[in-house]
């Protein structure tokens, strides 16, 4: 008597399991397909970079016949890649240092002291959070020209630090606000003045915030093409994106050189990303979600 009911029950459970397995396979299939769409062009870029131009045209998809680094060497010397790399490092690094040195104390003051102008100043900093600095490019260009900063790294460093200010002040003030008051009071009793309290006690405690600020900003700075295009004319201070854009334009028919150049240009961030993708993603998420 009980048999039909219980077997029907087993059937339903079995069907449910099978359905779930089908969904699982479908999801995996879809995610793999999407991964191919995102990854394959990058893989193809790396493989192609090792091939001489005729081989690219003859055999676009296979592995390269030899893994020679010759074209990379050509790009490195002929495109002055080493120089651009140094410039990009100096400019991105300089911007990060300037931004941290200016935004952290400001965020600290706005987060932990009450004074009459606090609300107004906080709003002033916050007002820029949604406005891209590019829209002020003409006055900025003339300002840089009048200050004699065009064609120097300082034009880019100052622009980048200024454009990162709203988000960084906001993000760091959140971090500073969460520190306990007792720390500050204890240091004050020990005879520290306000600047010492900030520098020696509070700043080291918001290191995750500082890291998030750097990570959020470094990728767009490193990859920026717009401001170097307008501010930098001579080769001396070209960054990787600008230098490469010009190099690619000149060698558009030599695919081998262009692909090697693309790989070289992408390598620094790719390496950092592959080595520390977890910190990278955590920092970006902190910036995006808190912002």
């Amino acid at each position, binding site marked *: 008597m009980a048999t039909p009911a219980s077997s029907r029950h087993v059937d339903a459970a079995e069907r449910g399991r099978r359905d779930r397995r089908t969904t699982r396979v479908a999801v995996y299939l879809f*995610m793999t397909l999407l991964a191919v769409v995102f990854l394959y062009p990058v893989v193809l870029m790396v493989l192609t970079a090792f091939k001489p131009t005729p081989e690219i045209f003859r055999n676009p998809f296979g592995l390269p016949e030899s893994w020679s680094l010759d074209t990379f060497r050509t790009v490195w010397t002929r495109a002055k890649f080493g120089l651009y790399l140094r410039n990009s490092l100096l400019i991105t690094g300089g911007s990060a240092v300037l931004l941290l040195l200016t935004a952290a104390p400001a965020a600290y003051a706005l987060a932990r002291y009450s004074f009459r102008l606090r609300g107004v100043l906080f709003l002033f900093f916050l*007002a820029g959070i*949604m*406005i891209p600095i590019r829209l002020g490019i003409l006055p900025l260009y003339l300002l840089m020209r009048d200050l004699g900063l065009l064609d120097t790294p300082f034009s880019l460093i100052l622009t980048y630090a200024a454009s990162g200010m709203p988000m960084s002040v906001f993000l760091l003030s959140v971090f500073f606000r969460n520190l306990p008051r007792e720390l500050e009071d204890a240091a004050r009793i020990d005879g520290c003045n306000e600047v010492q309290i*900030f520098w020696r006690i509070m700043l080291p405690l918001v290191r995750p915030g500082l890291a998030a600020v750097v990570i959020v900003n470094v990728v767009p700075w490193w990859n920026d093409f717009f401001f170097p295009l307008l501010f930098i004319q001579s080769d001396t201070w070209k960054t990787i994106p600008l230098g490469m854009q010009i190099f690619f334009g000149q060698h558009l028919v030599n695919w081998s050189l262009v692909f090697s150049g693309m790989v070289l240009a992408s390598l620094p961030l790719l390496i950092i990303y592959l080595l520390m993708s977890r910190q990278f993603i955590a920092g970006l998420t902190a910036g995006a979600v808190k912002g």
Partner: protein
Amino acid sequence: MLHARRWWRRHWHLFVFLTPALVVYGAFMAYPLLSSLTYSVYEWDGFIRRGFNGLANFVTVLTRWPYNERFWGAMSHNVIFFLVTFAIQTTLGLFVAVQLAKKWRGFAFFQAAYFLPYTLSLVVVGFLWLMLLNPTWGAIAQGLRGLGLGDLVQPWLGQRSTALMTVILVNAWGWLGFPILVYLAAVQAIPAEFHEAARVDGASPLQDFVYVTFPLLLPSIAMVTILTFIWDFNAFELVFVMQGASGSPNYATDLLATFFYRTAFGDPTTGGEPGQIGVASAIGVMMLVIIGVVSAFGVRFTQRSQTEY
């Protein structure tokens, strides 16, 4: 005097803390953005400012050919750019984030894969796809021919009917990792009890998404949408790299930013006229107003729908 000195002794540290940021931010961000507003109401001779011009620059952009045609063309391209990107990231991107949140085996790899193109410079993204999409030698054309689908090969970037959409899709390839990342973080921030409660009440996975996950994701979706809007209304690099400063073919991919760039700094591709700061500033001010209004509106919406767990 004594009063002032005591005030200073009690407040000097605030000046030490705030002055550097105020100088950098004030001089190199606030000042340029604010004075770009005034640039648009003057007549300019190269980089030299002449007399007050009222709204003449705006009238030029909106009514005089070819500015008016370029302006509305670029504007419509920017709108399409944003709408298509928005559609992709709030369907595909959201779906992928909800899947990734299940944390099945291998999903960490998928997440890293989807995000990887975001780390590439747009210069590299542009040139890479320029090569891949080349109708003669590009990998896509060769692949299609190898599969016997050679008829499908088209000069995707060279014809008016497909150029803009191709650029938008290339941009989405390099961008989608970011919305996925933010949505994933937002999905993971939803407490598990909410989903359990829904399941106890007999909700199917789809109902769980519609009635639990989606409403709680609305603030993140709004925020990413605003960021995307701002970014898309400033898009410049990809078109400049792939299609040139005038958005070839025949302005089919021209955007507000490339139009602004040509007007401000002259157009090297056509050897055209020298830069016109006043007219360019008028374009810039209109971009600023659009972005300002939309982001202010969006920020208010985000704040109102903010959830605390």
